[in-house]
């Protein structure tokens, strides 16, 4: 048997057909519909050119604001997850008693559905009946009590906090997988050369887990750009429209029957995701080559 034989091209056919039918075609169709006045009230669909895109950026309802919010959420949610996740992964990589238990505990929130997490945290963060404010009051820190999900100053940090609580364990697991591939001998050699902890971290650990960082970044960025459930279940885009993302705006625009505009918003999000995704993949391939 010739083990080096490459699989024939037609093996890819089924996967390709499924990809075209269920992903590519709807995406292209979506772009077409974003150029129409497709809506719930009329059976006739008329081509309107880029009117929906113009409306999106000129409307007083400020759809552009949701794009800014989406990018803001993507950037900050990744920072608040990845940095602590990396720190935890490095800590739990050490020979620590009960480290598997810690790892499990940290990973557990990631298996919970957003809906459950949202409902739990909505009640924890409730301004008058919430567990958090009750706790702060009872330990004499009443000055720190806030209207967590209602106040404009605290609503985003609260969302990021909940999102990090859920996501850190998952990112940490990916980092751990990367850390376990680093041979101990590298560290031993560095120690002999007199390297301190931070030098080892800077010159051995971080370069060696680049692929794990990239995986986490790709997952994190794509997650952030299409995030919906965590925000919807915690604030429904509120207070007012303060935490509206493109996805929550798409949901409400679609629900109000303006499918053309909703599809245009989705198309913009699709373009941003595609652009960012392509840039990351290109960067990743470059790094892989270097390694």
């Amino acid at each position, binding site marked *: 048997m010739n083990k080096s034989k490459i699989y024939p091209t037609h093996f890819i056919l*089924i996967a390709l057909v499924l990809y075209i039918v269920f992903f590519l075609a709807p995406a292209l169709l979506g772009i077409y519909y974003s150029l129409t*006045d497709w*809506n*719930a*009230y*009329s059976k006739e669909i008329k081509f309107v050119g880029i009117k929906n895109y113009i409306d999106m950026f000129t*409307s*007083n*309802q400020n759809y552009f604001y949701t794009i800014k919010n989406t990018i803001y959420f993507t950037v900050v949610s990744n920072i608040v997850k990845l940095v602590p996740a990396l720190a935890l992964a490095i800590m739990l990589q050490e020979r620590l008693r009960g480290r598997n238990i810690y790892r499990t505990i940290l990973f557990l929130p990631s298996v919970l559905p957003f809906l459950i997490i949202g409902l739990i945290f909505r009640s924890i963060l*409730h*301004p*008058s009946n919430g567990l958090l404010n009750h706790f702060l009051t009872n330990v004499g820190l009443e000055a720190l009590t806030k*209207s967590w*999900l*209602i106040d*404009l100053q605290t609503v985003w940090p609260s969302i990021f906090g909940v999102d990090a609580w859920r996501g850190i364990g998952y990112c940490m697991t990916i980092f751990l997988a990367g850390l376990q591939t680093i041979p101990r001998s590298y560290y031993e050699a560095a120690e002999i050369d007199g390297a301190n902890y931070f030098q080892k971290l800077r010159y051995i650990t971080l370069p060696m887990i680049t692929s794990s960082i990239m995986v986490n970044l790709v997952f994190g960025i794509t997650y952030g750009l299409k995030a919906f459930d965590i925000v919807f279940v915690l604030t*429904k*885009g*509120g*207070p*007012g*429209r*303060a935490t509206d993302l493109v996805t929550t705006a798409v*949901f*409400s625009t*679609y*629900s*109000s*029957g*303006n499918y053309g*505009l909703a599809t245009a918003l989705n198309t913009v999000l699709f373009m941003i995701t595609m652009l960012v995704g392509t840039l990351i993949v290109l960067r990743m391939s470059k790094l892989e080559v270097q390694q």
Partner: protein
Amino acid sequence: MKKILAIMMMIMMMTTLLAACAKKTEGTAEDTTAQTDSTTTTDTKEATKEAETTAPAEKSDVTLSMMVSQGWLDDKDYGLIDMFTEETGIQIDVQVTPADQYHDLLKSKLTSDTATDLFWSQVNPFAIKTELIDPESYCMDFSEEEWIYTMNPARLPSVSYNGKVYGLMLWHNSPEFVMVYNKTLFNELGITKAPTTYAELLADCKTIDAKGIIPWFVPGADGWQHQLAFFQIGGVYEESAPGLYDALNTNKMLFQDNEKMIEVLTQMKELSDNGYFGKDWIGTDSSNMNNIMGERQAAMVMANPGQIAAIKEATGTTDEYGLFLIPLGDNQNYPTNPSGPAMFANKNSQYPEEVKMYYEFLTRQESLQYMLDNSPTWTNLDVTLPIDQHYIPEEEDLMTRIDKSKMSTPVLQTGVKYVNEQWMDVGKDMISYFMDQITAKDVLINLDERRNEMGTVQGNPDWAK
């Protein structure tokens, strides 16, 4: 042999995949129910289980699914469902959805052909098409049914479209959503007269707030209450600019140009900024409203007259309560409103006969009497059949104080096109305004923009000009 096996396996996989993706043409109402992610009430489940074991063989074993917004059904409705199941064997699986998501979810389900057999919608003569998208496509036609005449004829336009009747609206005819206030508490604080102007309201709020009591309890987290105060006083806007409703309905005037509306929004913001709606009113819901009112944590709330009995029943308070009209913008107009939630049936339901049986059951005289007798917040039922109504003295007292000429203009959401449909959007914009993110005028500009979109896409000739 391996190749043949592989090909056969592939064919089987593809067939299974295609079958799974195929449009469902047959199925039961139970299947539809199982696919939905809503709450099924325990009461109904228990009732249906009981019915399963006790129903005689000739009774139907059909289960109808029903979708409803939170707060629209209460014990009276579940009691009637139980009675219907007992009589016919037909079970009704009620799926309750939070109010702020209900209409969005309903529209999505209607367009994707996954709607329940029965569903509710808040409708008025202008809104039936826009709220339900298209009654001709999605709703069962009941024009030939006898029971439609049980409804007060004034309500028929709200459930009709192009001359056909599609729904059943059993609702009360009370001064809906007026101010319910604790008369005893007011007197103790030296407030001897209910406010009739905004200045008086503001002064009273200040007095009440100084005692550490929430002056006007507004459950902002419900998502639908705060904008109601703005819409419910439609008469005062019409009064300030006669012909306003007609001009708005023919697209000759815009909301953003109405100074009175700006004034009312500004007043609401002032009340919110001063903490008169409660410190965390935006995050507070109405689930504890009766206790908050009965325990004197708050002095006023916008509610129906029947709420007084509910407060007293929930807390056993001996305080006296009264009613007055929402005095924002110095309003003294009665909130005339022939609209309300109505029950519709899915045109594509597998069980049209069972659906009709339920409508017929609900509109019997004894069912209507049961409905009123077991509703804690209703004092009457707006129907043509003779039943014993329970008007309360506070309600009659309010009615005698209102000038008849102040009862002719309907509330804004019923009298002006394309308003009710954007209820939640306006609510969100108002919160943004209260939080200084946009201006009062922006709230109205957004309202105009959405009206413009709706009027245009629906081909309304007044918007096509």
